C-alpha cells in the first residue's frame, strides 16, 4: 500500500495493517475507524492515512509530529466478495457460451478500497443479471484473458477466433464475448474476417459505465445480447450496446461497419455507412433491419492469421512522407492511409519534398500494399474525381470503397497473414467478404 516509508514504518511499529481499527488524535480532532490502503497509482499525499469512519466517510489524516496513532481492537476483511448462489439453469433455453477478454464489463470493485477486481463465472454473471436465467442457458463461461482493450493485440484476436469456433462446434446457439469498449470494434472486424462460414450470432458486448453503479448499462446490454445470441436469426459477428441514452433498446451492429464514436456515452457505438442489423428490446422483441447472413447450419472454421507489420497512418496538412518512409525502412508490408476527404494525401504541396507520392511509389515497388480510406469515416472514397486521387491510385494505392480505416487495417493485416501474392491481396481488399464494403451509398446512414 503506497504510504510513504515514514508512515509505513509507523503503522508497522503499531502493528497496524489495512483493515485494522485505528484511532488518530491530532490537534483536538479524533478520527476512529478502519485503516484503508492508499490507491496503487500515486495521487494525493502519501503521508495521509486513509481511515473509513463509522459514518461511512473516508478521510485522509496527515501523520505529522502532532498526530498520535493507536491500534484498537477489531478489524474488517477487505476485498471480500460475496459468494454467488448456485442457480439451476433451464435446459429448455438456447445454450450459449460466454467468453471474457476483460474490460469494465468483466470487473467489479471492492467497496472499501475502490480497487478493481475481475469477476468471472456463469454464476457470477447470473448473480448480477438474474433475468438471463429466463433467456438462455449459459453452457460455459471462460476468462480467455483479462486485458483492458487498449492493451489487446492481433494475437489476442487469433486466440479468440479459435476459442469461439471451438465453442460453436460444441453446439452453442450463439456466443457472447465480454470486451472492453475502446477497441471492441477492431476485434469485431477481426472476428468477422477470421471466422469463416459463420451461421450463428457472435455478439461482442461491453460496458460504458462501471458495474458498481445502479445506472450501469451492462445489464441491459447483457440481456439484449443474450436474447440475440440465443435465438437471433442472424449468422454474423456484431456489437450489441445501447442504441440511445435511454435504457430502451440495444442495437446489433455489423462487426465491419461499427465504431466507438464517443468517449463515454452508453450509446457510443454507431453504425458507419450502414444500418444496424437489428434492434433488440430487453422484453425480448427483436426487429430485424438489415441482416446479411441468416442463422443456418454451416459449420464454422477459424482462419486466424495476421501480419503484424501493418500500420495506419493519418494524412494531415504538413504531414511528412517520412511517416511512410520510416515504416518502409522497418519492413512494413501494408499501410492503411487515413486520407482526407475522398481519400487524399499531400500530393502537390508548395514544398515539393512534402509530397507523399514518391514514398508510395517506392513502397509499391518494394511490394508494399497501400490501402486508402478516409478520416471522414462517413462516405465513400473515390480514386476518380480529383487529380491527386487519380495520381495516388496510379501510383499503386488501392481505394477501400466505404470501409472504415480501422476495418481496413484489420482486413489488410488478415489478408497479408495468408500466403497470397500482392495482386491477390489487392483484389481481395476490394472484394466484399464480411459486409465491410457497402453495395450502395444509402441516404439514411449518416450520423445515425
Amino acid at each position: 500500500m503506497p504510504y510513504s516509508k515514514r508512515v509505513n514504518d509507523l503503522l508497522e511499529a503499531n502493528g497496524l495493517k489495512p483493515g485494522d481499527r485505528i484511532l488518530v488524535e491530532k490537534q483536538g480532532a479524533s478520527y476512529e475507524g478502519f485503516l484503508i490502503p492508499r490507491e496503487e497509482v500515486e495521487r494525493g499525499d502519501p503521508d495521509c492515512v486513509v481511515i473509513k469512519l463509522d459514518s461511512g466517510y473516508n478521510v485522509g489524516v496527515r501523520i505529522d509530529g502532532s498526530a498520535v496513532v493507536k491500534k484498537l481492537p477489531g478489524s474488517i476483511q477487505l476485498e471480500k466478495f460475496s459468494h454467488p448462489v448456485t442457480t439451476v439453469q433451464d435446459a429448455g433455453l438456447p445454450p450459449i457460451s460466454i467468453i471474457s477478454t476483460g474490460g469494465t464489463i468483466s470487473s467489479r470493485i471492492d467497496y472499501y478500497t475502490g480497487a478493481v477486481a475481475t469477476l468471472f463465472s456463469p454464476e457470477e454473471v447470473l448473480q448480477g443479471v438474474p433475468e438471463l436465467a429466463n433467456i438462455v442457458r449459459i453452457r460455459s463461461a471462460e476468462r480467455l484473458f483479462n486485458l483492458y482493450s487498449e492493451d489487446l493485440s492481433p494475437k489476442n484476436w487469433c486466440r479468440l477466433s479459435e476459442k469461439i469456433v471451438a465453442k460453436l462446434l460444441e453446439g452453442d446457439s450463439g456466443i457472447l464475448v465480454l470486451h472492453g469498449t475502446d477497441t471492441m470494434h477492431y476485434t469485431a472486424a477481426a472476428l468477422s474476417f477470421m471466422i469463416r462460414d459463420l451461421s450463428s450470432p457472435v455478439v461482442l458486448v461491453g460496458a460504458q459505465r462501471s458495474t458498481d453503479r445502479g445506472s450501469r448499462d451492462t445489464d441491459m446490454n447483457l440481456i439484449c445480447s443474450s436474447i440475440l445470441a440465443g435465438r437471433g436469426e442472424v449468422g454474423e459477428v456484431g456489437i450489441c450496446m445501447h442504441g440511445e441514452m435511454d435504457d430502451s433498446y440495444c442495437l446489433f451492429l455489423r462487426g465491419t461497419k461499427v465504431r466507438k464514436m464517443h468517449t463515454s456515452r452508453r450509446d457510443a457505438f454507431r453504425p458507419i455507412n450502414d444500418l444496424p442489423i437489428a434492434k433488440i428490446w430487453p422484453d425480448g422483441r427483436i426487429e430485424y433491419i438489415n441482416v446479411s447472413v441468416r442463422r443456418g447450419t454451416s459449420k464454422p472454421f477459424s482462419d486466424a492469421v495476421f501480419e503484424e507489420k501493418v500500420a495506419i497512418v493519418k494524412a494531415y496538412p504538413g504531414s511528412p512522407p517520412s511517416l511512410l518512409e520510416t515504416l518502409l525502412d522497418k519492413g512494413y508490408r501494408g499501410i492503411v492511409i487515413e486520407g482526407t476527404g475522398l481519400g487524399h494525401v499531400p500530393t502537390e504541396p508548395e514544398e515539393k519534398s512534402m509530397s507523399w507520392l514518391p514514398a508510395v511509389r517506392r513502397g509499391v515497388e518494394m511490394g508494399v500494399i497501400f490501402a486508402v480510406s478516409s478520416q471522414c469515416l462517413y462516405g465513400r472514397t473515390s480514386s476518380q474525381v480529383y487529380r491527386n486521387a487519380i495520381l495516388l491510385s496510379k501510383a499503386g494505392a488501392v481505394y477501400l470503397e466505404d470501409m472504415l480505416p480501422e476495418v481496413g487495417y484489420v482486413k489488410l493485416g488478415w489478408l497479408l497473414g495468408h500466403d497470397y501474392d500482392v495482386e491477390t491481396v489487392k483484389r481481395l481488399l476490394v472484394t466484399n467478404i464480411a459486409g465491410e464494403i457497402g453495395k450502395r451509398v444509402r441516404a439514411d446512414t449518416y450520423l445515425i
Partner: protein
Amino acid sequence: MDYANLGLKVGLEWHQRLDTHKLFCNCPSEVGALPPSMSVRRKIRASMSELGEFDPAALVEHVRSRDFTYRLSPESACLVELDETPPAPFNIEAVKICLEIALLLKMKPVDEIRCMRKTVIDGSNTTGFQRTMLVATGTPESYIYADGPVGLKSVCLEEESAFIVEAGAEKAEYRLDRLGIPLVEVATLPHITSPNQARKVAERVGAIMRTTGKVQRGIGTIRQDINVSIRNGSRQEIKGVQELELIPLVIEREVERQVSLLKLRDELAKRNVAPLESKIVDVSNVFLATGSKVLRSSLEKHQSILAAKLTGFSGLVGSQIQPGRRFGTELADYARVWGGVEGIFHSDELPGYGITEQEVSKVRTILEVQTSDAFVLVAGPESRARAALEAVLRRANMALSGVPEETRRPLSNGNTAYMRPLPGAARMYPETDIPPFVITAELLKEISSSLPPLPEERLEELVAEHGLSRHLAEQLVSSPMMPLYESITSSSSFDKTIVASTLLNTIPFLRREGMMVERLDAAMLMAVFKEAEKLNLSREEIEEILSMLCREDLDVSSATKKVLSSRMGEEELRKYIEKVVEQNSCMIAEKGKGAIKPLMGFVMKELRGKASGSTVHRILTEEISRRLGAC
C-alpha cells in the same frame, strides 16, 4: 411540556446551496430557470454486492426498478448529470466556501478530502449514488452557544439531487437542473434539548453561512433536517423543513406525537393486545351496490376491496396523536407509501363516507371482529391493496412496542407524515473517478486570513455605521435578508432603516396578507429602492409599490408611476387634512404641536401611499399651526 423530563434530544442538519457553478461540471447552479427540452428514460439496478444476500427467487423482483424519466435543458445540465461522462475534478470554489464556513464554526478541516459514492436507489441521482465528501469534523471547540453549548459534528460538501416532479408506484419523473448543485451540509450533535433552542441554533448557523456572502438565496436554497427523540421514544429524521419559524413547532408536535404513541403502546399493553396476524380478506362482494364513490369507482375498474382485522385496537385507530392527525392517519401513510393506494378506511370512522352500517356489519362478520377490535379497508389493484394492508398491519404491530424509527416529512402546520423507514448505514464507497484533494497549510492560511466578519461583528457595524436601531440590526444579521440588504445599501444611499424594515417587516406582512411575495426577486427589490432613492418615496409608497408588483404583471418603473399617479392632488389633500384636523381638534388643543406625530401616522396609514410623507407633513403642520394660531 417538560422537555428535560421527557429526555428530548434534537440534532439539526442543514443543506445549503452554494453560490457557484455545479460541483462536478461547469453547468450553472440554477433551478427552474429554463424549460426542459430533452428527456432520457432509465432504470436503476440493485448493487452487485448486495445481490449476494438475496435468494435467487427474490432476485428478479428485487432488481426490477421503476421507470425513471429525467428531463433537462442542455443549458443547465450536461452529460455529467446524465451519467454519460465522468465527473470533472470538483469545483475548488465550492471547497473553499465550505472551508470558510468550517473555520467560522471553529471546526477542524481534514487533511485530505476523499470523495465518496453513497448509494441512492430512488432515482434522484442518475448514477444510482450521490457524491459526497467530508470536509471538516468537530472538536471540543466547535459548538454553537444558544441556551447552552450545542456541539457541531461535521461539515460535508456534496451534490444536490435531481428535482422530483412526480413519483408513483411504477415510475417517477425528475428534472436535472438541480442535480449537481454544490451543497454544504452542516450537522450538530444531538445536544439540543428544547424547541426554542433549536430555532436559535438554526438562526445562528444560517447567519454564519450567509455571512460568507457565497451561499445561494431564496426559497428552497436551504433545507433543514431535524432529528428528534425522547426517552423511550425513538429517533425520527424529519427531512426538509424550509422555514426557520417552523422548526420549534415541528419539534413540539413531534414530541407530542411520540408521547401519544407511547400512551397508545401502554393502552395496547393494558388491553393485552397480541401481535396481529397477517390475515387479509377480499370483501369486494360486500360493496357491490355501495353508495361510497371511492369504493364504487374502484370496483368499476375491476380493483379489489380488501380488509384486515386489528385485534384489540377498537377506538385507538381514531385516537389523536397530533392536532389534526390520528393513529389512522399514520396507517394511511404506510398504505400510501408501500402500496401506492390513495388511503384507507378504518372502523373508528365508519359508518361514513358513503359506507353504511349494514356494510360495516357485514365486514365485521366476515372478519370475525369483536367489539374490542378495529378493522381497516383498502381499495385498489389487488397486489397493491394487499401490499398496503400488509404495511398497515406492520405499522400496527410496531405500535405494540412504541415508536418506530422513521424518516418523516414536515407539513405546513408543524405535523409530520411518514416518508420511509430510517435508512441503515448507507453503503458508501470511494469515488475513484475523483482524485483525493489535499488541504494544504497554504490553502488554510489563504482562507483564514480573509474570513468574513461574524454576524455579531456585522451587528455593531450596522448600528454604528448604518444608523439602524439595535433591535432592527439584531433582526437583520440573523435574517436570510441580510445579503440582500447589503446589496441594496451598497449601491444606493436611500434611508437604510426603511430598507431594513421593508425587508424584515413589510414583506412578511404582505405575505401574511396573502400576496405572492415570491414575485419580488432580488433584482426587483433593488430596482424598487433605486426608484425610492430617485423619487424620495415614503415607506408607505414603497409598500404600495411592492403590493402592486405582487398583484400585477408590471415592471418596477410602471408600478411606481401607477402608485404615484394615484396620489392625491394638493388641493384634495388639504381638504382631507382639514377634515382630520377638525375631527381631532381636542387632541390638538391638548398636545399642540405634539399632535403632529400621531396624526402623521394616522393620515399616512389612511392615505396608503396616495401622498408623499413630506407633503403630508408640510400640510398637516400648516393646518395644525393654523388651528393653534386660531385658538
